[in-house]
């Protein structure tokens, strides 16, 4: 029998039983939609994180306390990174153009009768050029502020709004941990960095931070959480990383294990790429399982259908259908169900991805590879899970089949 005739016949059978056909397809539809959505979201997350690091600029480096190994072992990072380290880097490493040590903690911030919790970030004037983050109004922390430990604060855009509303915060006094600070500047809106809203932050001089807010907690000097560094240009990033590492090893008298890590933007991108890649694979695997379950659903319904259609199969054999004809007929039915389910699922998946990219910052995209794989896999699943019921149908003894009335 011609394949076109088999397809026509299969379509006729499937449309005669619309409800069941739809239910059978449902598993594949859901599986396919979730594969495409999950892969799209995973890749969107990857792109989002990459974009964030890209936006830092290619010549940014970070020094964080603890080696990548020791941070795996201990919950609490050793507090070995100090303000003095940052100063040494600034003065002794020639390939560095700016050094911004940061010390941060979460605190209540109060203005008149309004109170909110915000991140308090102690830093130096270099923070602004290193992180390319400038004030919109007023001024940022100056060297003099750091030197004297003044109680000056530059507010992030969102924080300024939540404390002051529409009135002008410049020159006003706010209280952080019950200490009065004068507002000297309002930062421009910067948006979130890796999920942390950089506009909901109060920026104060590092010395004020360590002396009056956190207290000196490190035995080595003024502790910092983090040092952001700008290399002179993109080409000197590698040299800067090498020089900073050597300098810090000398300063920390390190013989074996580093108690700090110097990361470049490239390192960070690599880490993000690895994490997001693993996330995407995990999401795809979970979605793949549902696709597989959908395939089993097809097999299940097809097996029931073979039972139910024994008489039809017997009759077809009696009037001249060979085993191959019956086999092909049932396999085609399964493939049509799977392929159609795959197509509908793909449409829903594309819709889901579009919705995610509309309501979240993730720039989720539909990857053509994901679509092709999902549709290919679901048709393959139809073939694979269709074979067992189809063989059962083909092997049916026509006499038994016809007598089963």
């Amino acid at each position, binding site marked *: 029998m011609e394949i076109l005739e088999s397809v026509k016949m299969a379509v006729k059978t499937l449309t005669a039983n619309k409800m069941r056909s739809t239910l059978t397809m449902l598993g594949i539809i859901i599986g396919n939609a979730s594969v495409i959505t999950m892969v799209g979201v995973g890749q969107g997350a990857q792109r989002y994180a990459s974009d964030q690091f890209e936006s830092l600029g290619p010549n940014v480096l970070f020094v964080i306390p603890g080696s990548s190994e020791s941070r795996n072992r201990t919950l609490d990072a050793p507090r070995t990174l100090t303000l003095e380290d940052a100063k040494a880097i600034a003065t002794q490493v020639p390939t560095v153009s700016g050094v911004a040590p940061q010390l941060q903690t979460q605190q209540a911030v109060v203005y008149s009768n309004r109170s909110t919790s915000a991140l308090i970030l102690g830093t130096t004037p270099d923070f602004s050029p290193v992180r390319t983050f400038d004030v919109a109004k007023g001024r940022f922390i100056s060297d003099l502020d750091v030197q004297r430990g003044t109680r000056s604060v530059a507010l992030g855009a969102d924080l300024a709004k939540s404390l002051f509303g529409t009135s002008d915060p410049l020159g006003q006094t706010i209280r952080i941990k019950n200490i009065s600070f004068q507002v000297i500047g309002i930062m421009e809106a910067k948006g979130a960095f890796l999920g942390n809203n950089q506009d909901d932050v109060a920026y104060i001089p590092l010395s004020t931070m360590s002396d009056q807010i956190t207290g000196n907690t490190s035995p080595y000097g003024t502790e910092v959480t983090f040092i952001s560094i700008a290399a002179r240009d993109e080409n000197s990033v590698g040299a800067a990383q090498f020089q900073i590492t050597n300098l810090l090893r000398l300063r920390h008298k390190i013989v074996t294990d580093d108690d700090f890590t110097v990361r470049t933007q490239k390192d960070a991108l690599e880490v993000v790429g690895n994490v997001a890649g693993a996330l995407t694979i995990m999401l795809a695997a979970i979605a793949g399982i549902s696709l597989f379950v959908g395939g089993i659903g097809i097999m299940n319904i097809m097996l029931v259908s073979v039972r139910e259609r024994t*008489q039809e199969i017997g009759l*077809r054999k009696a*009037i001249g259908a060979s085993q191959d004809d019956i086999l092909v007929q049932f396999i085609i039915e399964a493939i049509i169900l799977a392929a159609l389910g795959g197509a509908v699922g793909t449409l829903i998946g594309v819709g889901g991805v579009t919705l995610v990219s509309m309501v979240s910052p993730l720039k989720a995209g539909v990857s053509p590879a994901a679509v092709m794989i999902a549709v290919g896999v679901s048709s393959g699943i139809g073939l694979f899970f269709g074979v067992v019921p189809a063989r059962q149908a083909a092997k049916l003894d026509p006499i038994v089949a016809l007598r089963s009335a």
Partner: protein
Amino acid sequence: MKTIIRFEHVSKVYGSENTEVRALSDVNLTVEAGEYCAIMGPSGSGKSTAMNVIGCLDRPTSGSYYLDGVDVAQLNDHELAHIRNRKIGFVFQQFHLLPQLSAMENVMLPMVYAGIPLPQRQQRATEALTRVGLANRLNNRPNQLSGGQQQRVAIARAIVNQPVLLLADEPTGALDSHTTQEVMAIFAELNASGITVVMVTHESEVARLTRRVVWFRDGQVIHPNLSPTDLAQVTVAAV
């Protein structure tokens, strides 16, 4: 005259050694072209098994069966399917029409498996349905037809590939006496036009309308060539 069916020492054994059932035991039987014959016998006599072997749905355990000169025992599944498609037309007690197809489409089905192109299929299906008096029911589904009409569709389906043998298994078993007459008239007419007809039945009123009765008992042919008019004495003897 051409021989359509020839059984030579045909036996059919079901089950394994311990639970062996000899459904057919050394049966010899010949049916010539153009005959109109009924296979009769009490239940368990082997008439259904004989019917399955004649229809190439089942193969004999031993012996030879020649259908239209071809030794069927030697054929594989594919060739058997081909024989069923081209040489035999089946009519069943339960009609066995596909509910999702129209009368026309049901009749076209054997031609689909024969690989006949659509226009020719439509033309021949229309002719066959006209021949059984259903020219005005071409597009009705089986559930829109009466039992007699459904059986006539099944007959049209059986003759549409111009088989050498029309094989009917209790064709009137599901019909009332009036429609039985109608359907039997069609069989008589088809036979008159030259088609060989063999039917299995247990109704003597039906068998009486044929021209030869083959009587089975205990897997053997007791009376290979009984005149339908002598049926009464055999039936009485059997009881």
